[in-house]
């Protein structure tokens, strides 16, 4: 009964969506603000990757809010799961030597790849969020591969806090230098080189460390007592 009802209203919705979408052509030219970003992006921010320049420069406040949400989510996760009692589960089969060794071998490379992604955020696809997620997946691999070795959560917290503080301090330095938050006060440099785009690489480093530590912390909290 319920399924049929759901299907009927979904079909009605699909019909409406079809009528609306048929008026929107696929692959038409972009919006005016998008064109502005594309045309003036390099000149104004120095970042070759326009998406990066939007995320960190034009809409920097959004990113600050996003980072805050992420922080609050990890905080709330810890708070909710802090009171959960530890249930002893069945014995986990210890990983084999080959797996452990491979994990140990791969772990630094994954970290390095993540660092590469967020360092080159202004030049190539990727950035702080993606790099941070890759770093976190490296930690995930480590947790799965060598479960007996634990990283202390306080070090995650420290890195996370440092990343957040660095972001805000860089933003506030913009206040003193240029009069508004996240003002790009460093020299733009030559486009397409690593040392360009002013504060964007610095912020992406901060975000990358913060996101990586946060995601790894979330995984750590979830995996901790099971």
């Amino acid at each position, binding site marked *: 009964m319920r399924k049929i009802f*759901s299907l009927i*209203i979904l079909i*009605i*919705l699909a*019909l*409406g*969506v079809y009528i*609306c979408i048929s008026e929107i052509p696929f692959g038409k030219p972009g919006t005016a603000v998008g064109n502005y970003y594309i045309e003036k992006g390099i000149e104004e921010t120095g970042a070759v990757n326009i998406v990066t320049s939007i995320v960190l420069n034009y809409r920097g406040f959004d990113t600050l809010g996003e980072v805050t949400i992420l922080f609050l989510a990890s905080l709330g996760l810890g708070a909710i799961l802090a009171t959960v009692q530890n249930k002893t589960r069945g014995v986990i089969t210890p990983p084999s030597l080959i797996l452990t060794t491979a994990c140990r071998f791969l772990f630094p490379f994954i970290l390095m790849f993540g660092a590469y992604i967020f360092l080159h955020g202004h030049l190539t696809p990727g950035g702080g969020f993606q790099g941070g997620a890759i770093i976190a997946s490296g930690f995930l691999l480590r947790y799965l591969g060598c479960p007996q070795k634990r990283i202390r959560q306080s070090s995650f917290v420290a890195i996370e806090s440092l990343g957040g503080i660095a972001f805000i301090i860089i933003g506030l330095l913009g206040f003193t230098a240029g009069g508004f938050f996240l003002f790009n006060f460093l020299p733009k440099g030559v486009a397409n080189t690593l040392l360009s785009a002013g504060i964007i690489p610095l912020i992406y480093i901060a975000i990358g460390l913060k996101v990586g530590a946060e995601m790894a912390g979330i995984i750590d909290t979830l995996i901790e007592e099971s």
Partner: protein
Amino acid sequence: MLIQSILIIAFGGAFLTYILGKASSALRDFLAVLISVSLTVLIFLAYGKTGEIAFASFMNLPLVLRINHLSWFFAIAIQTVTTLSVIFSLSYMKGKERVDFYYLMMLLCNSAMLGIVLSGDFVSFYIFWEIMSWSAFLLISYNRGGALYAGMKYIVMSIIGSMCMLIGIMSLYSTYGTLNIREIHDLISTASGEYLLFISILFLAAFGVKSALWPIHVWLPPAHSEAPSPFSAVLSSILIKMGIYGFVLILYVISGAALYLGLGGGSFRYILTLLAAITIIIPTFNALMQDDAKRLLAWSSIAQIGYIILGISIGTSLGLIGGLFHFFNHVAFKALLFLAVGAIEYRTGTRDLNSLGGLIKKMPVTFIAVLAGTFGLIGIPLTNGFVSKWLIYKTLILNNHPFLAFAALVGTWGTILYSYKLIHNIFLGQLPENLEHTKPAPASMKLPFIILSVVIVLFGILPGIPLKLINLITASLGFDLLNINIWGIASESGPLNIINIFAAFAVALIVVWFFFLISGKKVVISQDNSYAAGIDVPKGKYHYTVDFYNPMFRMIKPYFRDYMDEFYSQLVKALASLSDRVRRLYCGDLGVYVIYIVLFLSILVISKIGLNLW
């Protein structure tokens, strides 16, 4: 400067009293009395002054204080009653809990009421109005228990009224760009009739709730009977009169008599007078049926409010004078009656009319006070109530409103009946055994009784003193100046000479006395003879204040239930069950919530497909 200092002393004194009360209760009592008395003196000094001061600004709106005869008239009434109530409270509140809080709220309420009558724009008017409403709420529910329910009833209705007023104020501001009462008065003559009617109805709702006009009066009886007695006096004699002030403000100060009379083709005035007449009749007979002394007085207050509104809403000079004078008189005698009942409750511990009786020997001063109060309430000649009721009757008859006049007369008959019930059941009759050792009221309670009794009799004999001031008020509202002398009104339109009435009254008294003398010997029949055929009645078994007016009640009781109260309770119940049904939409099942969202989207889609709305 004087107005500001009055308000600063009033508000500052209230909080200072509270802080001081934490240290010493004697000092607190002294300070409360000192502040009240000094405020009375200050307001007396402000007599005859007119002026306007902008003392602050709120979001680019100047907050204005102003004083004129109308404000002064209300302010002196407020301050006198509060001062007497505070003096009365000294012994009444002794030994009770949270007395600091009581004094704070009492003085705060007083300050807010002073602020209302002294404010010259609607922003400060509204702010003071809200302070008054909330402090009154806290005082009504001071006793907890049933008082909390009464307080909730009061504050809910009061908030509805305030919201109506706020809408009216905002509408005025968006139309005229100013909230200064004087400026609005200058601008409002350009308003269209519909707009004026709209504003007037909004303010009618706001002030009608506060002054307990008939269909929205239901908060008043429980609130008055549950509040502490000194505050009941303030509540009944002053706080509900703020609604009267509001009526005068909106009908005469802002609209002006000419605009008001033409409002809605005259139907607004017609409906208002009709409501006032209903407000007289129904509450009068409801008062008759009460067994709680304070509840009786509460219903009586509603009825007297009906007289005042009737006088004001007729829209003539004489009617306005009568209404304002009746306001002043009602302040005097209703404060007196509530304080007296408070004193009786203080001494006997009860205010149930069926278990009291025969206190005349035990509390003589209180008896004299209640006698004066009820005489004023009924309107016996030589008390002030007579003069004001005379003026109101005269207005009604002169303006060809025979039915309204009849309603007022019926109200007066009912008033005589319940006043007699009050005075008989408390002071006359047989003294119940458990009240044998009742002590007279303490001195701090007697002082307000004496002052208010003197006021009632003095202004009954020399009505020219207040009438002169009221005449100035009506003159400032655009009416003709009447010729007032100390004995009454000498104008052609409504002559009133208290000497003639006094003479007629004296002659009638002498004639009656004469007949009484020549009608032969009086035969004294003891109570036992008529009731028990000579057999001795055991004391305490027989108490004939119970079921007073019982045959009459059997006739009128089915017709004079508080139908409005029942209507509102039914409304509340219906609303609660409706809300419960609405609440069941939130069933706690996530899938159902998603269905709501998707259904809403589907409705949008259907409207797009079928109706092509955009």
